[in-house]
């Protein structure tokens, strides 16, 4: 009997404490679709712009590319051309325009249904060759079974004083492949090297993205000063090459150092913070510099360092 009473009281307690759920309505003010403009323009390259639409949170529709918008481009306030939609690439481009270092660009996109969006950003001033040095060292560790290779990349940067600078380091793997059985052409593939990079002696100031193939940081810890930091890579970064009568294969690595605009930096930081909202993580907005829309117009310069040490 005593046990029964205890059992009943136990059930009562838990029943009373049991959480309950119900659907509720929260009136969201933003109900209309907005145009989404995504574009990362590199100095020395032609512009490419993606246009799509946002989806109202309660809708189950899919976002789609917007094909029939008028996209104009301005350089330092002057219109320099129109970007046209390339169906294959699903992008608006104009090969006659080349993005220049330290210029301001504006993109205005107009669509009969989605209205007009615009964004302005400036390309950071590119560092000279003497401002940035990159060194690469290959390490081998024998664990008794097989050798473990890793790379140590050292960057030395003369950070520009009196301005806020933002950097992005990217590890790219490039393969060149020719196979006579498949095609007469040599196929070149370029991919982010996931799980590649990590700053040696991290102070927690950098952000890793895209499976550690990107490192993004600002100059807070070395503002205006020369700095040197090492990036570890848990990959064998040396070039490998093999060939035969009917095939040729080459794989090599590049480390790109981008000087990115503040907008692009803020976009990446916000994207990183937005990734995994849960009970213990305050959700955050994705940064956008698009007027009347979402997305990002980011600008950067790029210096590419190819690692040409060949594997034995």
């Amino acid at each position, binding site marked *: 009997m005593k046990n029964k009473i205890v059992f009943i009281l136990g059930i009562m307690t838990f029943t009373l404490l049991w959480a309950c759920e119900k659907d509720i309505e929260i009136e969201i003010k933003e109900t209309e679709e907005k145009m989404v403009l*995504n574009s990362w323009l590199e100095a020395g390259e032609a512009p490419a712009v993606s246009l799509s639409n*946002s989806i109202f949170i309660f809708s189950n529709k899919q976002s789609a590319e917007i094909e029939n918008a008028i996209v104009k481009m301005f350089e330092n306030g002057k219109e320099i051309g129109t970007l046209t939609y390339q169906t294959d690439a699903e992008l608006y481009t104009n090969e006659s325009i080349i993005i220049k270092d330290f210029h301001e660009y504006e993109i205005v996109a107009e669509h009969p249904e989605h209205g007009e969006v615009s964004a302005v950003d400036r390309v950071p001033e590119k560092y000279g060759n003497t401002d940035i040095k990159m060194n690469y060292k290959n390490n081998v560790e024998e664990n008794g079974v097989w050798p473990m290779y890793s790379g140590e990349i050292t960057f030395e940067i003369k950070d520009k004083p009196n301005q806020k600078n933002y950097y992005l380091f990217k590890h790219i793997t490039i393969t060149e492949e020719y196979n006579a059985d498949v095609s007469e052409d040599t196929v070149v593939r370029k991919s*982010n090297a996931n799980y590649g990079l990590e700053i040696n002696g991290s102070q*927690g100031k950098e952000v890793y993205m895209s499976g550690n193939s990107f490192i993004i940081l600002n100059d807070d810890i070395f503002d205006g000063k020369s700095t040197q930091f090492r990036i570890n890579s848990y990959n064998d970064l040396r070039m490998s090459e093999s060939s035969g009568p009917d095939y040729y294969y080459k794989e090599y690595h590049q480390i790109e150092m981008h000087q990115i605009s503040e907008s692009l930096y803020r976009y990446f930081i916000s994207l990183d913070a*937005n990734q995994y909202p849960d009970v213990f993580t305050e*959700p955050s907005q994705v940064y956008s510099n698009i007027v009347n829309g979402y997305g990002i117009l980011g600008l950067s310069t790029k210096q590419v360092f190819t690692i040409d040490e060949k594997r034995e």
Partner: protein
Amino acid sequence: MNKILWIKLAILCLVISNSEAQHRISGYIKDVKTGESLIGANIWQPATSKGTAANTYGFYSLNIPGDTATIKVSYVGYQSQELFIKLNKDTTLHFQLSLSDVLSEEVVVKGNRPNLELTKMSSMKIPAQQIKNIPALLGEVDVLKAIQLMPGVQGGTEGSSGIYVRGGGPDQNLILLDGVPVYNASHLFGFFSVFNADAINNVEVVKGGFPARYGGRLSSVIDINMKEGNMQNWQAEGGIGIISSRLSVEGPIRKNKGSIIVSGRRTYIDILARPLIKANTDGDANLGYYFYDLNAKANYIFGDKDRVYISAYTGTDKFYAKDDYSYSYDNNTDEYKDEAGIQWGNITTALRWNHLFSNRLFLNTTATYSKYNFRLFQDSYSKYTSGDGTISENSYYAAYNSGIQDYGTRFDFDYYLSNQHAIKFGVNYIYHIFQPEAFNVEGDFGDEFEMPNSDLIYGNEYAAYVEDEFEPISKLKINAGLHASAFYVNQKWYPSLQPRISTRYLINENLSVKASYAEMAQFLHLLTNSGIGLPTDLWVPATDNIKPQLSQQTAVGISSLLGKGKYEASIEGYYKNMENLIEYKEGSNFLDLSESWESKVTTGNGWSYGSEFLLRKNEGKFNGWIGYTLSWNYRQFDELNFGKAFPYKYDRRHDISIVANYKFSERFEMSGTWVYGTGNAITVPIARFPVLDTNDNNQYEDDYYYYSEDEVYQYSDRNAYRMPSYHRADLGLTWHKPKKWGEASWSISVYNLYNRQNPFYIDTYTNENGEKNFTQISLFQIIPSISYSFKIYPNEK
């Protein structure tokens, strides 16, 4: 500045010279039956309305002009005493008051020197008995929940004991138990507070206009004094409730010289739930949760001038899951033991010495120790015994610890210069040892792991203060003071000078206006990831990278007596500015152990303003209060919400509390509460869209495939939306029955009387049509409970 100093000195000299022809009475004001000090009891001359209030130890000192006077002594809930005295020298005079009989008369409050007479504003006292009458969740009387019913004080989420005062955070409240800071005042993840109402004498909450003697927190002081213990007779008090039971025993060590009280409480949720859990897990799992707390206090009077108190509190919460099994096969035996859990608790101790240097100068010396520790752990052991007797053992232990320890000492002087000047001054030192977070793993697997940046941090906090309550002109009373404090951490000093002033102008005997200004500094931060009082909130110090929190608060108000003094009404407006607040950076997660806490936080500012209305009736068969707060509360952090200001999570435009008690007879009383609050501010997803494609995987070098299939949810501005509003009614009925041995009572309470599903948390989910929906998680629906209480007075029957 010099001019002001000279003027003040001149006033002091004038008062001193005037006081030479006067006599002084001093002594203690106590409860006649128990000898308990009546903290804050008023003593004054009705003819002149000049008077004073007893201090925390029941001591008073009052100047009497001339040789004769009529003295009146009063205390809420007690019968007032009036005494005609003749004096030819300074005299020691102790008073003993008896509880009032609320049924036989409506006690008129008029003339009881209510709040309108005091310079102190934005503060209130709640007697323990009033707290006990308020209906409670699962019948567990809760001091902090009672405080949440006062205007300007808000609770966090459903059921939580978190306190948010005038826009401040939960860390900005200095919760003192007998003068010792309590860092985590929550049991059961915040649903109950750690204070056992049976062991409490008095609770005072100060929300603004802080006198200079208080420091170290920005938003409030919650000063909880434990009972001293019955000086006359042994008695016991206790109760049996649905989830816990409690027992207090108190009595004289030596009659009228010393007393002791010991009080304990323990839950039995683990015992009640065990059969249910076993039934649902085939008997394998052993899950449980319990909390207990134990209070003890003793005091001894060594003479007319010396009294010593020693008090201690310890309390622990533990949630655990255990496995313990073994099995044999083919002459081999496997044994496995595992325990994982969360455990947290506080220990506080205080040793106090009261010394009366003269009838004007009172000293309290306190030595304190306070410790709060939180531990998340797993402890595993396995043993394999093979048929040939070979034994193989493995063990694994992982623990995440966080805590804070304080060693403190303080000297507080009360100097009663004259009826025009009551001066308080003192010094205080606290040695803090912080362990914000530490994670270590040990085991037989060879490697041991220790979290980076898990070193202890040592902080030294110094403070000195002086305050004077004086009456420069008739009807105008001023409490002015200065609190100076400094914090030394990681070889960095943070000094702070905090001026404080409160004024009261008596327009007439029923109406006064008040104004106050207070600057505060706080050298600790609570790094919190939720508002539900999780023990995982980390106490961290100001460091060389993170500055101390600062605030400036201005308040103005009107205090009034209505209905021939039966009702007390007040309205106050305030503006509070807060600097150097900390929050987790966007996207940071406290569960991420790869980063130190300092790299996960960002600093910013906050401000809040609003007005509070209180109508209160303290005495009579029917008593209670109505409180209403209209407030705005914002934060601005450069790294949050793109630098734009945003509403604080507990920005609550409207907050209403109604508390009513009615005593039908000596045997039966009823109480009820109703609360309403604007819904908490939340951030919600409002749209989704494709992100910039940065992934070059499998892209042909000359192609542009920029369009990404990856979508991201766009959230609203931080805290731009609201949860549904919160409201709830509770009802309590109590039957008292006199017994030969004392008194028994049965209490029935109903929490959430009309079964309102109040929001605890808002989540989103995608339904079968691929559409996003919001869902509300509610915790407590209607919860009836019953409890039995008893008081044993063997010597009185």
